[in-house]
Every structure is written in structure tokens, then in C-alpha cells.
């Protein structure tokens, strides 16, 4: 490039490290977003320990455990898909991502049935059975719906994120040498997993 001048550090260059740093910073905001809810949870649980215990018996530990295993497995597949693409094996990477998406769908389906069962039994805010519950138990269910709902939303977002990356791997714009987007979607997916790791004992395992 004769007769031209360019700055060594340019905001217009592709910079994998910058986008990784950016992703991590974004994850902090996600952590604190849920952090706010964990604060509320902590306070209300400290104020109503017994009610939270009784309310938690309404959840099915085994469904929760299955979902935990599903999410952990999907975390592994997404991590492996990064390994695959870094080794140049796009095909394997795609298969592993497809498994991840499948796991996300399974997770959501199970959640759907869990929520459905709760609502059928009248546990949704405003329903008859619900308004008769003691205060602490109502708070428990408010938190349950709010936190798992928000988490479910993140599962959906992560899924869409992964689907987009899959498309990019297919058309070759994510490849052996340039795969930060895949890594970032992996990071996001792990975050979804991380949050569930805390939600699970806090709601299902109060016993």
C-alpha cells in the first residue's frame, strides 16, 4: 500500500482477542443480571426458610437432575465443537453443535412440562390455589418462575446464537483460523449452564 498510511492498532481490523474480551465483559453483565435475582432470593429465603422448604417439595428433583445432566452434556459438546474446528474438522464441529441444539430443545421441553404441571395445579400467580398459599411460598414461586423463565430465555438466545454460528461454519466464514464467534457462542452457552448450576440446588435441593 504505497502512499498510504494506516495506524498499527485499528478498530477496523479483525481482532479475535478484542472480541473475546468483549464477550467476557458481556458475560459479567449477565452474571450480575442474575446476581440481582440471587440477592432477592437470598433475602427472601433468609426471611422465610420454612416456607421455601415446603414450597420446594412441589418441584420434581428428578426432572431437575435430568435437566442438569442435559445442560452439562451440551456444555461438553459445545466445548468439543471448538476443539474440532480448531483442528480443522468443520464437519465434526457442526455435528457437535447440532447435538448442543438438540440438548437445548430437550431442556426446554422438560421445562415446559414442569411449568405446565405447576400451572395445571394452580400455582401460577393469581390462580386460586396460588393466592391461598402462605406468603413465603408465594415468594418462592414468584422467584421460581422469574428466574427459571429468564434462564429459559437465555437458553433460547444461546440456541439462536449457535444456529447462526452453524450457518457461518457451513459457508466457511468460521473456520480453522477464524473461529472467535464460535468460541463466543460457546462462552455464552457455558454461562447459561453456569447459572443453571446454581438455580438447580437453590430451587430443587432445599430438602
Amino acid at each position, binding site marked *: 500500500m504505497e502512499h498510504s498510511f494506516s495506524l498499527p492498532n485499528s478498530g477496523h481490523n479483525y481482532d479475535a482477542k478484542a472480541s473475546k474480551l468483549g464477550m467476557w465483559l458481556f458475560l459479567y453483565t449477565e452474571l450480575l443480571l442474575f446476581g440481582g435475582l440471587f440477592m432477592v432470593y437470598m433475602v427472601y429465603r433468609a426471611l422465610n426458610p420454612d416456607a421455601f422448604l415446603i414450597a420446594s417439595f412441589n418441584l420434581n428433583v428428578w426432572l431437575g437432575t435430568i435437566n442438569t445432566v442435559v445442560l452439562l452434556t451440551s456444555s461438553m459438546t459445545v466445548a468439543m465443537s471448538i476443539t474440532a474446528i*480448531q483442528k480443522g474438522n468443520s464437519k465434526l464441529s457442526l455435528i457437535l453443535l447440532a447435538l448442543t441444539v438438540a440438548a437445548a430443545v430437550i431442556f426446554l421441553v422438560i421445562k415446559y412440562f414442569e411449568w405446565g404441571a405447576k400451572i395445571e395445579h394452580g400455582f401460577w400467580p393469581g390462580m386460586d390455589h396460588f393466592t391461598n398459599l402462605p406468603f413465603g411460598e408465594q415468594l418462592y414461586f414468584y422467584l421460581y418462575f422469574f428466574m427459571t423463565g429468564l434462564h429459559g430465555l437465555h437458553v433460547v438466545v444461546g440456541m439462536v446464537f449457535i444456529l447462526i454460528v452453524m450457518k457461518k461454519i457451513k459457508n466457511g466464514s468460521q473456520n480453522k483460523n477464524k473461529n472467535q464467534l464460535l468460541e463466543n457462542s460457546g462462552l455464552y452457552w*457455558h454461562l447459561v449452564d453456569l447459572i443453571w448450576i446454581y438455580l438447580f440446588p437453590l430451587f430443587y435441593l432445599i430438602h
Partner: protein
Amino acid sequence: MEDSYHITGYAEHFGTWVSLILLTFMTVFISVFGADLNTLTVATALFIASVKALVVAYYFMHLKYDPKIYRIMILIVMSMFVIFLIMLIFDYLTR
């Protein structure tokens, strides 16, 4: 990219997964069958959850192989959050 980066092997990911699953069963087991531990169950459940979180962050999220700054930053963020929790609950415990 100019500098080489670490590629985690499949076996390591699998090993990570196995340990996470084991921890999950452990925490479920303690909670379902060890109910007489009372408040201790909360503590153990949270402790195991934190171990799991650390494993995910270190191996799946690659923190172990990232530059130190990433570990320092997450440490600062998490300790801030913990201080928030402490200061918040302090108010309720001293009312």
C-alpha cells in the same frame, strides 16, 4: 493469528464432563438422603455448585489457559458480588 493458542483435547473435555456429572449426583444424593444435615445442606449444596461452576469456567470456558488478566477480572467481579451479598444480608440479620 500470530500467537499459538491452546487446543483442549476431546479427552479432557470428556473428563471434565464426567467430574461434573459425578458432582451433580453427589449433591442430589446429599440433599435427598442427607436431609438431617439441616443448614449444612445449603452450605454443601452451594459449595458443590461453586466447585462445579469453577470446573466449567476453568476447563470448558478455557480460563485455565487464558491470560491471567481474565482470571483476575472474574475474581474481582465475583468478589464484588459476594460483598454485595454480605452487605445486603447484614441489614436483614441486624434488624
